[in-house]
């Protein structure tokens, strides 16, 4: 199993080559290579503190890289002009780990921020579209006029997803979307991501720890250890992998219980 795939670059949403990112003397990502295909949901797993979020933030340009090449939709992000960057930023949406909603704005206004910045829509349509997005992510209509401080953790995640989807992006980064949610909300969230991916043709880059999400929504999984992607493939391939870290991750007690439950439910 190789991190490389033979696919031509126009089939790829994200292509990362020989990426090095470090803080101080510590090298977090070392010669990392990763491909994300268009239209797939890629689950990105790794131990805590191994740099999963760092990779996402590097692709987004929030963290400086030391070396390497990051291409999104076939375009090298270093070569892009300022306008090119702005155009690229319209094509992706980001759900930050803690939501990162603007605290001074209501949920509705939060969702409208990218619309206001990039588009010239009539206020009525903008309101309607924002409320539609809020409904799509499963929030009640009343939530639209609330401030982030009045929302629960799950609602913040949903509102943040609504904002990430405001411009109907082609690529969505989700940083631990289901962490801190109860199992029912988490399952609904997974379902939502799947629906959106199928209807909008989204490419989803999902950093997650949630084994349930990996099973239910991810087309492929990539695993990060020692600053590198040690394996990519479908969940079945990951289960069959030999790497010791993968074996502990996917065959640990919690994972085994889940696999067992799934085998029983499909068998019955």
């Amino acid at each position, binding site marked *: 199993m190789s991190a490389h795939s033979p696919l031509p670059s126009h089939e790829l949403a994200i292509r990362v080559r020989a990426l090095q990112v470090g803080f101080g003397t510590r090298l977090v990502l070392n010669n990392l290579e990763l491909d994300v295909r268009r239209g797939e949901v890629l689950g990105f797993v790794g131990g805590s503190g191994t740099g999963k979020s760092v990779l996402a933030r590097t692709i987004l340009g929030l963290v400086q890289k030391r070396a390497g090449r990051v291409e999104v939709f076939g375009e090298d992000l270093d070569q892009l002009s300022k306008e090119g960057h702005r155009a690229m930023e319209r094509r992706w949406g980001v759900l930050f780990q803690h939501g990162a909603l603007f*605290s001074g704005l209501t949920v509705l206004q939060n969702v409208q921020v990218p*619309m206001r910045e990039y588009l010239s829509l009539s206020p009525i349509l903008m309101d309607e*579209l924002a*409320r*539609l997005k809020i409904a*799509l992510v499963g929030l009640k209509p009343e939530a639209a006029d609330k401030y*982030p*401080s009045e929302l629960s953790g799950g609602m913040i995640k949903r509102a943040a997803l609504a904002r990430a989807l405001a411009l109907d992006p082609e690529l969505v980064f989700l940083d631990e979307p289901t962490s801190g949610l109860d199992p029912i909300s988490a399952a609904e969230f997974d379902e939502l991501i799947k*629906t959106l991916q*199928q209807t909008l043709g989204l490419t989803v880059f999902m950093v997650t720890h949630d084994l349930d999400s990996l099973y239910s929504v991810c087309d492929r999984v990539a695993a990060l250890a020692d600053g590198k992607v040690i394996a990519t493939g479908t969940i079945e391939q990951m289960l069959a992998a030999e790497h010791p870290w993968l074996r502990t991750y996917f065959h640990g007690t919690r994972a085994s219980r889940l696999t067992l439950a799934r085998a029983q439910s499909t068998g019955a």
Partner: protein
Amino acid sequence: MIEPSFTQGTTAQALRFGLGGCWVISAPALEATATQLEAAARNAQHIEIDLGEIIALDTAGAWLIDRMRCAIKAHGGDVRLVGARREHDILLGAAHYRPFDVKPPVQGSLLVERLADVGETVADAGRDLYRGVSFLGEVMSALVRLILNPARMRSTSVVYHIDSFALRGLPIIALINFLVGCIVAQQGIFQLQRFGAATFAVDLIGILVLRELAVLLSSIMVAGRSGSAITAELGSMKMREEIGALRVMGLDPIEVLVVPRLLALLVALPLLTFVADMAAILGGMVVSITYGDFSMDVFFDRLQNAIKLNTFLVGLIKAPFMALVIAMISAMEGLAVKGSAESLGRCVTASVVKSIFMVIVVDGLFAMFFAAIQY
């Protein structure tokens, strides 16, 4: 990107529209095209909309198409969407039109709202006072408990805070008081020269600085520097539930966190006031000698005539009271922080503003008190 467009035609039974191009949110003509389409279709009875030629569709496009379908339906027309690809069909289903009955915000009269604002602010101030008194009681009872059981006194914490409030605040407080001493001397000499009484500027410096300015400026500086630090520290501990953690371990946050800071301020502020006195008089002396051409002897002679021990004590007596006011307000604001970072910011601002305000009010009360007892 190909802009959204439509063609109009007729079939045997219906008016037929064929949609084409990209019906996506980033297409600038999206909204206008949808409006045109709706206007063209408005009065027909039977309408067929063919979605087969659409290149790209997103939620905004789907919403507009479905909104139009509902609008025509409401007019009594009958609309069929045909030829949609499977993924577009799912999208139309997901982003189907739904009216959002948004209640417009209640518009009250401006005057009533202003009056209500004023009333609320006054009521808030009253509540603040009430809370302040009850908090003072709490702190005092914790203090008494500690005095009865001194082993529980957190002396390390007290010393640490004295260091951070007094020692680290010393340079800036000495400097501003030196400068204010200079300014008072310069203005005093300049104004009094016209009456040929320039040497009385020394009386002015001595009395004004020792009685009022040194303690007032030190308190204001400490309120801004240390009061805000207390609020921020306690507030962030409150935010991260550290205060709750202390409580469930059976520790009293007032005893552990507030009392050491209060004691530290009670020690620090009088010390700082003394340094401020000296710095301001030094500043006054420097200006008197260089700008007013007094000799050192004249300056000290006048100073000894002008001030007595009580002039110095009036300033110093006020310092612990200022410390109490600052510590109470900043600790109370710190513990009033709610879960969010915005509330921390608000409370730190409120803490500094209220502390400075109360410091000045207390100074005014003391001025009246000392005048009444002729001290």
